[in-house]
């Protein structure tokens, strides 16, 4: 079997700062792809099943490229323990009901759009990838926006659930804007445009922006330091158990 090899060699000479950022963004993409994959066969409609898994596939492509820069992608995905993952706690949160998944997508893809646009314009070794993903992420964001509008401005039940989901995940949004070493993007400065973007969507959906703290005191900035929430262990167990139980297995 032939596998296309990436243009950038995996082993850069010496420690490269951007690899730190590649690991953080790669883990975000990998973990969210895994979560979205859980909807396969379970989404409310066939079209939505396909949409969520296609978004997951885009994210998996990002993860493969980014983790491939850091080292062996399979080794990194399947053989690291929980504390070694650098993803945001937001992306590991359980799918919940459909509204929870959409709220998570809204918060994350609005932020990712801003981050990748700036990264694409930078001279980082990650700029090439970002130049490509920025167009894909625009579709992810649009998907989340359209669903937020439909659920918020829908039935009493859908409106209640969408509001509940926005409220429940709000505490994980502060971490989105904590600085990431090696990432040439001023993350704290992106919180204001993100907030404007999300507020506009939420208000158009006749919902209200959550008002509580945007990070939980017990876990401030935890994901980037390898501190994760309870649900993450179960996600890893499902994602990793096959390669760990059967080392070297192929199909």
């Amino acid at each position, binding site marked *: 079997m032939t*596998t296309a090899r990436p243009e950038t060699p995996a082993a850069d000479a010496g420690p490269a700062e951007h690899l730190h950022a590649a690991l953080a963004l790669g883990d975000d993409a990998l973990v969210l792809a895994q979560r979205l994959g859980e909807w396969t066969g379970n989404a409310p409609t066939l079209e939505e099943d396909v949409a969520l898994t296609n978004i997951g596939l885009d994210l998996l492509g990002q993860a493969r490229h980014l983790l491939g820069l850091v080292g062996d992608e399979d080794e990194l995905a399947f053989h690291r323990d929980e504390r070694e993952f650098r993803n945001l706690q937001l992306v590991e949160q359980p799918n919940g009901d459909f509204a929870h998944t959409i709220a998570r997508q809204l918060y994350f893809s609005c932020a990712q759009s801003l981050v990748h646009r700036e990264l694409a314009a930078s001279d980082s070794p990650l700029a090439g990838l970002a130049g490509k993903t920025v167009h894909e992420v625009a579709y992810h964001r649009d998907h989340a926006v359209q669903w937020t509008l439909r659920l918020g401005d829908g039935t009493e039940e859908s409106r209640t659930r969408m509001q509940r989901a926005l409220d429940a995940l709000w505490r994980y949004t502060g971490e989105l804007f904590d600085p990431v070493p090696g990432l040439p993007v001023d993350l704290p400065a992106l919180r204001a445009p993100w907030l404007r973007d999300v507020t506009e969507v939420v208000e158009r959906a006749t919902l209200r922006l959550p008002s509580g703290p945007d990070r939980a005191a017990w876990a401030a900035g935890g994901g980037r330091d390898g501190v994760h929430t309870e649900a993450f262990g179960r996600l890893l167990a499902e994602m990793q158990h096959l390669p760990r139980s059967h080392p070297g297995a192929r199909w």
Partner: protein
Amino acid sequence: MSTAPGRTGAGGTAPGGTTTEAELRRLAGAVPDPELPVLTLEDLGVLRAVRVLGPGRAEVDLTPTYTGCPAVESMAADVTGVLAAHGWQAEVRTVLSPAWSTDWISAEGRRKLREYGIAPPGPARPRSGPVPVELSVRCPRCGSPDTALLSRFSSTACKALRRCRACDEPFEHFKEV
């Protein structure tokens, strides 16, 4: 038709043979897309470059349509196979930058897509900003502009699912990126 390494000047001192590279490009470019077999890699605009490295050895640059497109590995295997059948040992690299855009699909490719029942992409949208409202995507079957979006994602990440209000047929639309 065969392109034996010795015959077209790949061996010897100066492989800089543009004829050979053009010939290899033609061979690699004629490989069909694994998911849209009506299109060749050349039509799709994913064949970035072909370089002769030495006698019987070449390097091919492919660029994926989408970052996570699973077809890239299969394209790479097909290109390697075709070139091997002509006596060339080729290695395929995937190149991300500059990013592929649907503007790279050739006019011939667009015509083939439409005939195949897939609405071809319009002009790619600006480099930044939100996804704009699509003015109109014409039904590839009856040509009516009166069509509606059913889902932004269809059988592959690169296509959206639409329905024609005039002839009632659902169809796929190659999304602009």
